[in-house]
């Protein structure tokens, strides 16, 4: 890897970061900004799923539970007068404990057993969110206070835009740094061969538990921000509909880069919005179903023609343009 190859993606990243920074100024549209807030929040979850699926090889389906747990904890505490920032932190702390308790037994499982048991936890948590009195049962919780720290108050889409994206980028940096260093290598080694990793001194179980808890806590904090942004929490937001979207984002984003699921999240969220906006005009009655069918078709086409996802497509495009440039130079 020479320095040029190393620098290139950084330049692309800087351009995207600059665009994100000035977006509210270029596009002062509340709708666009509000969708982008959701892209950042769900992006954090998709990132976590990508790290677990692609780098750790752990197919756990509980991410929405931790978003919900973070959101409900923050909502319940702040409704009882706990300062909002502390209630978000408490949510993250609770998520860490619950993730440890879930992860320690469940991560010993592999393959279908892991997928099914984690999915069972998702279903159980959803029932708990819908039935318990403390979570407001099926109605959820309303009138969540504003997110404030001292005299500072976060309100409005633009402020939440910056807050959620700052958090999302922080999570991306944390995940990237981990994947590209000793614990990340250990996790990937264990994904490829647990016996091989263990024979080189890697305590596989501990590393898998650690990465599971870290991605879960990220989801928990995202949940805290989410609940103050929406100012309501309702159980339907943290269930398998979200899980399916997240898995879709991860698949569409592709493998090979830590940020791929974030790209997938951006594309899926906006595709969904566009379809809602324009399909409604063409087919007003059956919009919801048609959207699902179209997403299904997109996945099938993508899996056939670009099994590496959007990241794979980008790489191929880069290679193509580079070869075009080369032949242009030599001519």
């Amino acid at each position, binding site marked *: 890897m020479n320095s040029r190859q190393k620098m290139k993606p950084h330049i692309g990243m800087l351009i995207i970061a600059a665009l994100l920074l000035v977006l509210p100024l270029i596009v002062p549209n509340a709708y666009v900004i509000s969708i982008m807030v959701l892209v950042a929040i769900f992006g954090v979850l998709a990132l976590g799923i990508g790290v677990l699926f692609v780098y750790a090889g752990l197919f756990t389906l509980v991410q929405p539970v931790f978003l919900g747990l973070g959101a409900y904890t923050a909502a319940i505490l702040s409704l009882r007068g706990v300062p909002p920032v502390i209630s978000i932190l408490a949510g993250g702390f609770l998520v860490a404990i619950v993730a440890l308790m879930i992860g320690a037994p469940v991560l010993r499982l592999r393959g279908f057993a892991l997928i099914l048991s984690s999915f069972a936890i998702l279903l159980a948590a959803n029932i708990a969110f819908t039935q318990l009195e403390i979570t407001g049962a099926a109605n959820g919780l309303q009138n969540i206070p504003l997110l404030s720290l001292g005299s500072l108050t976060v309100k409005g889409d633009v402020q939440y835009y910056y807050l959620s994206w700052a958090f999302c980028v922080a999570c991306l940096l*944390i995940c990237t740094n981990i994947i590209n*260093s*000793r614990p990340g*290598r250990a996790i990937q*080694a264990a994904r490829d*061969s647990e016996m091989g*990793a*263990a*024979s080189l001194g890697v305590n596989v179980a501990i590393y898998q538990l650690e*990465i599971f808890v870290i991605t879960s806590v990220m989801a928990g904090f995202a949940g805290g921000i989410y609940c103050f942004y929406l100012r309501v929490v309702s159980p339907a937001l943290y269930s398998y509909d979200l899980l399916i979207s997240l898995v879709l984002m991860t698949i569409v984003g592709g493998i090979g880069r830590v940020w791929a699921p974030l790209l997938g999240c951006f594309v899926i969220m906006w595709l969904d919005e566009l379809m809602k906006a324009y399909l409604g005009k063409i087919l007003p009655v059956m919009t919801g179903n048609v959207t699902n069918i179209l997403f299904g078709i997109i996945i099938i086409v993508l899996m056939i023609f670009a099994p590496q996802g959007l990241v794979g497509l980008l790489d191929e495009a880069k290679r193509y343009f580079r070869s075009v440039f080369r032949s242009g130079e030599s001519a």
Partner: protein
Amino acid sequence: MHNPILEVQDVSKSFGGVQAVQDVSFSLVPGSITSMIGPNGAGKSTLVNCLAGLYAPTRGRVFFEGNEVTGSPAHKIARYGMARTFQLEEPFPYLTVLQNAMVGCHTKSKAGMFASSLKLPWMTREERRIADQAMANLAVLGLAQHAYDLPLNLPLGERKLVGIARTLGMQPKLLILDEPVGGLATHEAHKVVEVIRALVSQGLTIFIIEHNMPFVMSVSQRVIALEQGRKIADGTPEEVQKNEDVILAYLGKDEDA
């Protein structure tokens, strides 16, 4: 006489009703090359898995440098300085050769999730040190030019060398090679022999599991033969080659004669 680096006392391992290894005892002298031979299914790999902590022996004890390691988990035994390669497991296929070698430095580095997520300066320095060390280990085995390749794109001989290279990062005292030349062409096998001799000259103890008799006889100072989970011979290559039980195990009884 040195104290043995590895001492195996009456180790047995059974799976359900199958006795894979039965009451095997031997010890390894530091700095020696010992080979274990035996037909397929003789229990060689099972025994290695018992030594390296992937299986817990059903009976018996294992001592490494005088300390009992029976039943310790594999990652702990690796930390004590016992390294191994695998017969069938390839190097991590989706990590580059360099990253494979860097995973090998796992026990000789300590950056955890916290230091890594924040890219603390000492972690970056450690990372550079590991990369240099891993690169040097690859160079020892002549793999430097493949540092950025994926092992799955390399020929079998080089993949086996990557398997050895990544254990060097652990700075092991004992290296167990499970079929290091299985399936290799002659010139590739020669390369492995050179590597083994070079490692022993640096003070490593080598324990080899192998089928390839010319290789075993040329490289080993001592040969142990296993048959149906039992030790049937133990001695110099010449002695073992002449042992009737070994000949019987390998060639079978000549019933036509």
